[in-house]
């Protein structure tokens, strides 16, 4: 499929895809508006980076000054490989990740997938811009979620260390920061965005692994909900890429995998010391 610039995309199509942020206040100062634009832009950039392996650029599709309502639509830069429908679905995934993530923050149930520490810190600042009515965020064809000022407290809880244990995180290594405490950011296979603090030697190794799938093992810090917040890495190595071959290719290929046992007997045989009974 030939590449197409964002100027060639039908404006109505973009409008239908738009994610709307509405800061409903009696009066929005220029300073507040400037921060509103900056924080929404940062949020869109951070979450789409975590959610997609391809680039996304957000364009403004609507702007109402009465109460600072902005609508953004993603334009995805992968037009030579994916069909319009696939890109539309991916754009939709990003928008729903943002809406679902904000909902998870409001409910204070878990650190939302695809939200890095930086994205959450930005969301915290965004939430403080709203007053009693909060900020309404809505994706196409879905209910709006209201970002209230209480989200700031929830984010503090979501990022507060509660437990430490030894473990590992697997995902794409995407950011290397050498400022002060050197760290890398790993985008886990299923939405975890984890800051991994590494030694200088490991940072040098990490530079060679930028963009690769890696395993970082070390002391994990998690929040009270068990979500990994950060890891102090002791080991870093490249992990093989995962695939998505059709399950039909492996179905029925090992008919004797449990030998003479039934599957239940086989599984029980793996844990022979158990005395509890189902």
């Amino acid at each position, binding site marked *: 499929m030939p590449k197409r610039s964002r100027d060639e995309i039908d404006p109505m199509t973009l409008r239908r895809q738009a994610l709307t942020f509405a800061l409903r206040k009696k009066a929005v100062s220029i300073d507040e508006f400037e921060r509103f634009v900056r924080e929404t832009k940062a949020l869109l950039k951070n979450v789409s980076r975590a959610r997609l392996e391809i680039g996304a650029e957000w364009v403004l599709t609507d702007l109402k000054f009465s109460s600072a309502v902005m609508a953004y639509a993603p334009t995805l830069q992968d037009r030579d490989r994916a069909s319009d429908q696939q890109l539309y679905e991916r754009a939709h995934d990003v928008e729903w990740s943002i809406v679902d993530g904000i909902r998870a923050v409001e409910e204070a149930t878990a650190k939302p997938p695809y939200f890095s520490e930086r994205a959450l810190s930005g969301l915290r600042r965004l939430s403080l811009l709203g007053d009693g009515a909060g900020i309404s965020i809505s994706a196409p064809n879905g209910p709006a979620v209201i970002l209230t000022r209480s989200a700031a407290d929830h984010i503090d809880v979501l990022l507060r260390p509660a437990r430490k244990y030894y473990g590992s995180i697997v995902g794409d290594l995407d950011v290397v920061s050498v400022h002060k405490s050197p760290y890398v950011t790993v985008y886990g296979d299923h939405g975890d965005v984890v800051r991994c603090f590494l030694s200088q030697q490991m940072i040098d190794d990490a530079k060679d692994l930028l963009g690769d799938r890696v395993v970082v093992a070390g002391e994990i810090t998690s929040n009270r909900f068990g979500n990994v917040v950060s890891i102090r890495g002791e080991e870093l190595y490249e992990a093989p890429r995962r695939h998505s071959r059709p399950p039909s290719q492996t179905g029925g290929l090992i008919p004797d995998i*449990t030998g003479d046992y039934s599957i239940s007997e086989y599984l029980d045989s793996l844990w022979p010391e158990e005395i509890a009974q189902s």
Partner: protein
Amino acid sequence: MKRRIYACSGVFISHLKGTEPESHACTDILEAAREGSIELHTSWVTITEVIALDRARLRRTPDHQRIVTELMDSAYIVYSAVDQIVAEKSRTISWDFQIKTHDALHLATAIVRKCEVVYTIDGPLTSRSGQSSNNIQLPKILLPEFIREPSLPLGEPRTTPLTRKPI
């Protein structure tokens, strides 16, 4: 939001066996995950259970190991670690419901990952579906079932009626 489904080890084993009454339903669950219509969760513990052990008098061949590795390394499977929260929930499940450790580990992981259904091939375990104690509410526990919408294959519409092949 996609439905979050948890699959115990038996789902993967039954899929690999292909000879059990529920094998095709297990494959259907995996296909649904690959198509992206559900989120398929399991525990890293599953990796340690979907193997072939000598005690079951099995023929372990490099081919079998490759097939198992290929299936369990699929990108559509969402793995979860046994961390402190999962381990403590698993212990509570064992205490409160007298459920075996390995089943309790799977149930605890499903609860922590907020999965709406747990698929197991362990019939008796399904009798615990939705039960609750003072400390914990078990999720819906079901035998594997077909979850994909029946659909016609993509391509040109069929112009001739389906006919039974002569035996």
